């Protein structure tokens, strides 16, 4: 068992890991195969790698790194659309910094900027709205990106633009929603998952009720977890506890942030401005029904998709990339053929290398490059 030096509450962590080991011993399945637990959220992925949590857990637990990093699942075609909008005359294209380096089929937003497009990094969609106010003769487009955590922010910004009568502002909506994605993963034949670490900040907005189907129909436990190392360990313990007692429930470990009912004003703003798309394309995962939202007709004039001609072309992921398999947890990042060679954080081929919340970048950054195959790890253990 190895602990990162700066690990807080070391004793608590050690106790939790012991309890986890004990529970593993009581679970029949672990005699034949490890338990697969997926963390859905990129924040958890980042935290797991940063603190070396995988290395602390017994070999009977396999953590599967899920698709919960919005930057990482952005398909190339959508990046191309961003570039196409940004290159139109008179446009100021605004985006969170995270999305600047995601590769498109021709170029990233960063390269588009270098080539002369007016692409600006902003911290908040409010800043994009302020730019629109300041530049009435320009069209300001905000790249709306993220799960339910950031969806309310763009919805509220659209409502503010409407209230203020601002006409030169629009959102290029690429928001995605977590529940249909989890369902798609559960329906995927090449994956067997035994439980889920639920996303903390998405749940802060949507609450815990939308996950009930995971317990009721798929009979899998989910524990909504905070992202501190102890939160993650405690949540894993809670999942194992459920499995060992034959329960499948949705539990909330992160009660200090996540109210069971979610956030009413946030949900109301989202429902007012957005509606579900029939389907949305994900990098690596393909098309998933009802997994994205678009701007409702009532707010069409704030919808960049309607305001601008966009190519909207589906671009296949590069052949050498195995992002899809890694996203679904079928392959570990280091098993991808180009990991660490052709694909690095400096020259990302796949989006999982771009954000520290992507599994590949996290593996790369925190010494995972040297990680050995599980069999070797097992023999190295005392």
């Amino acid at each position, binding site marked *: 068992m190895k602990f990162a030096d*700066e690990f*807080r509450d070391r004793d608590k962590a050690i106790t939790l890991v012991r309890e986890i080991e004990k529970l593993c011993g009581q679970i029949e399945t672990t005699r034949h195969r490890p338990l697969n637990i997926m963390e859905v*959220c*990129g*924040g958890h992925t*980042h*935290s797991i790698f*940063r603190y070396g949590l995988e290395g602390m857990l017994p070999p009977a637990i396999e953590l599967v790194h899920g698709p919960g*990093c*919005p930057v990482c699942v952005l398909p190339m075609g959508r990046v191309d659309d961003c570039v196409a909008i940004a290159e139109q005359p008179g446009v100021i294209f605004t985006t*969170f*910094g*995270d999305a600047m380096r995601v590769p498109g089929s021709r170029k990233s937003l960063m390269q588009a900027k270098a080539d002369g497009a007016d692409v600006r*990094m*902003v*911290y*908040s*969609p*409010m*800043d994009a709205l*302020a*730019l629109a106010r300041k530049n009435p003769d320009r069209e300001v487009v905000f790249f709306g*990106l*993220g*799960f339910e*955590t*950031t969806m*309310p*922010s763009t919805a*509220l910004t659209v409502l*503010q633009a409407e*209230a203020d009568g601002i006409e030169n502002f629009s959102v290029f909506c690429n928001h995605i929603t977590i529940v249909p994605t989890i369902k798609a993963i559960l329906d995927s034949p090449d994956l067997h998952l035994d439980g889920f670490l639920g996303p903390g*900040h998405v749940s*802060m*907005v949507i609450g815990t009720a939308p996950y009930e189907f995971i317990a009721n129909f798929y009979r899998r436990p989910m524990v909504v977890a905070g*992202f*501190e*190392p102890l939160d993650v360990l405690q949540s894993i313990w809670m999942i194992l506890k459920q499995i060992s007692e034959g329960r499948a429930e949705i539990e909330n470990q992160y009660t*200090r*942030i996540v109210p069971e009912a979610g*956030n*009413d*004003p*946030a949900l109301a*703003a989202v429902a007012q401005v957005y509606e579900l798309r029939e389907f949305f394309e994900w990098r690596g995962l393909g098309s998933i029904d009802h997994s994205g939202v678009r701007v409702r007709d009532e707010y069409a004039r704030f919808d960049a998709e309607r305001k601008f001609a966009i190519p909207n072309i589906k671009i296949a992921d590069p052949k050498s990339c195995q992002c899809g398999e890694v996203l679904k947890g079928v392959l570990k990042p280091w098993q991808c053929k180009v990991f660490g060679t052709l694909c690095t954080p400096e020259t990302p081929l796949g989006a999982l290398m771009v954000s*520290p*919340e992507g599994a590949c970048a996290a593996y790369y950054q925190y010494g995972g490059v040297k990680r050995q195959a599980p069999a070797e790890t097992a023999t190295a253990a005392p």
Partner: protein
Amino acid sequence: MCLGIPGRIIKIDDAGRKLATVDVSGVRRQINIACIVDAEHPVESCVGDWVLVHVGFAMSRIDEHEAAETLKILTELGEAQAEIEAMRRSAVH
């Protein structure tokens, strides 16, 4: 962008638009507080609140201890620096 950052509301700028100034580790900027106000916790009562700020929107009220713990881990993850830097840059224009 997904993890947010804790800050403290120091004044209300525009009660109608639900805009307030927040202090995040010494960086001040305007945020939207629509998601943390309701009948029991009106705009005026938000001054002094610790909140979790996601991309310029207060998404959750937290206590001071939670704020400190969250800031510590965000710093270790390297996310706090990036977030504060993005805020600082945006506060200028």
